[in-house]
């Protein structure tokens, strides 16, 4: 491409044009991504000796290992995030199947748009909705009393299950969209052929549909996992004081206690965990990062 457009420019001007195009990208990536993360790494690996004097140390990481609360929270956050990702996939898959394969024409695009609409609205608003639905004086506990299922309103907020519901809800779009586009590209005649050859529902799903949709499943799962593990709003509001979410620890150290060294170490641990799981997911399914991000 450039051989044609570039041929019109003499070499120094082409270099200048390239530098001008590179400048904003370099300022952005160096100034807001690379250097800040190096700063975070440096912060996490130093200890204060006297005011203004620091030395290299693993103290912050040792605190993380020694203090059960911290690594419990860490493991718990990872566990709930994996569970939330799996639940999102299980709920989104049939819905995506319905949209991609069963409805046709106008109804199909209408349903897809209906899926998108809630996610154009701020996560704060969606969480407010769940709080109104689930708190002790809220809609659902009241409904349960009216139906005679419980005698008094039960508090449905501040449980792990509440956090899970909130996380699944808030991630749904990022699973449905890649799944729908992966399933749409699956030729119906393949399913018909499998059926004619004696396949039943499960064997067709497992041998034909899942392998075909794998890129969409992986893309959706990776995005949902990353959003979930980095989420702060949903766990703290729906989980209350019991949420024990790792981003909350980072916030507490950084903003409340002003212990930046410890907060930086926690931030790095979360970054490593999130990157590691994404990497394992990509390796297991032999996909490239760039493709997955573009798909999502």
């Amino acid at each position, binding site marked *: 491409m450039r051989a044609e457009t570039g041929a019109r420019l003499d070499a120094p001007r082409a270099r200048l044009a390239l530098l001008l195009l590179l400048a904003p990208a370099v300022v952005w990536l160096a100034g807001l991504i690379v250097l800040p993360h190096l*700063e975070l790494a440096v912060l996490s690996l130093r200890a204060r000796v006297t005011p203004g004097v620091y030395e290299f140390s693993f103290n912050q990481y040792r605190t993380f290992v020694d203090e059960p609360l911290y690594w419990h929270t860490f493991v718990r956050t990872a566990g709930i995030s994996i569970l939330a990702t799996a639940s999102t996939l299980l709920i989104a898959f049939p819905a995506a199947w319905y949209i991609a394969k069963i409805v046709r024409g106008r109804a199909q695009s209408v349903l897809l748009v209906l899926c998108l609409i809630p996610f154009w609205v701020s996560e704060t608003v969606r969480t407010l909705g769940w709080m109104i639905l689930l708190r002790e004086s809220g809609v659902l506990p009241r409904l349960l009393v009216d139906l005679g299922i419980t005698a008094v309103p039960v508090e449905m907020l501040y449980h792990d299950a509440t956090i899970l519901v909130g996380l699944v809800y808030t991630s749904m779009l990022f699973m449905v969209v890649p799944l729908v586009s992966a399933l749409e590209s699956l030729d119906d005649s393949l399913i018909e052929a499998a059926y004619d050859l004696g396949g039943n529902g499960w064997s067709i799903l497992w041998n034909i549909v899942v392998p075909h949709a794998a890129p969409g499943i992986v893309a959706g799962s990776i995005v949902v996992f990353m959003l979930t593990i980095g989420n702060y709003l949903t766990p703290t509001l729906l989980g209350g004081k019991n949420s024990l979410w790792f981003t909350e620890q980072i916030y507490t150290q950084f903003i409340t206690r002003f212990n930046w060294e410890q907060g*930086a170490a926690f931030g790095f641990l979360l970054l490593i965990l999130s990157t590691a799981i994404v990497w394992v997911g990509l390796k297991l399914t032999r996909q490239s990062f760039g493709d997955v991000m573009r798909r999502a």
Partner: protein
Amino acid sequence: MIPSLPRSSLQRYTTAGFVAAFFVFLFVPLLVVAVFAFNNANYPAPPWRGFTLDWFFGGGARVGLFADVPLLKSVWTSVVVAAWVTLLSVAVGTANAFLLERAQFRGKSALSLLMLAPLVIPGVILGISILAFASRLAQFAGDMWDVELDFLRPGLPLVVAGQFAYIVSIATLTIAARLKRFDVTLEEAAFNLGASRSGAFWTVTLPYLKPALIGAAAISFLMSFENFNTTLMLVGSDPPLTVMMYGRMREGASPVLNAVSLFLMVASALIALVLLRRPRASGA
């Protein structure tokens, strides 16, 4: 399975039932937010006590949305921040798109991968890293030249920087995807007809990119307006709407939050409609 295969009616009803439940799940939280904006009670909770517009226009004991100065101010703060983020993201995203699609240089593939990295960094970490780095810069400037650089302290300039840091990745992807499909011979034709490089860019290339630019702008604005994680770490004394709402929700919200949420829903739906009328332009 698919309609061309025989399905039992039980199967058909289960599928339809599941999909119906799925959409109820999606919309019930939004519905209750909207409904309780009109409930004549001091707390957004059942039972229904009759219809009121107090939470929009109330000015006395019940402070409605249009009398709630801090809340309105936070909406305005969000709009200003989102406008800056949109402007910067679309401008830099366009430059990046040309860099990725038109230029050849060493390290290009590494750079294009690095451009996607902000999308996998959790927002909280993006926030604290920029906070720490900006604070180091401010301290350095203070020590070296004895100047106080206020924009490097927590506040709106840092919020804009933090949101821009990852939203520009999305803008880049959106604009690059459309630029990739551009037929370069159109530019060649413009040159042959005597256009200068900038003439061809403004009259041929840019109009072609317009749908992607609009799409990228709408997405950037929305993502900035809704951002919470990164913003929370970088915010100073004037909170944008999401941070303001979060603070009030922790204290136990009054229905004025439902009222402002209803406005957000209507605004988002309008933006969505505008985008969807240009099919596949946004690529998102």
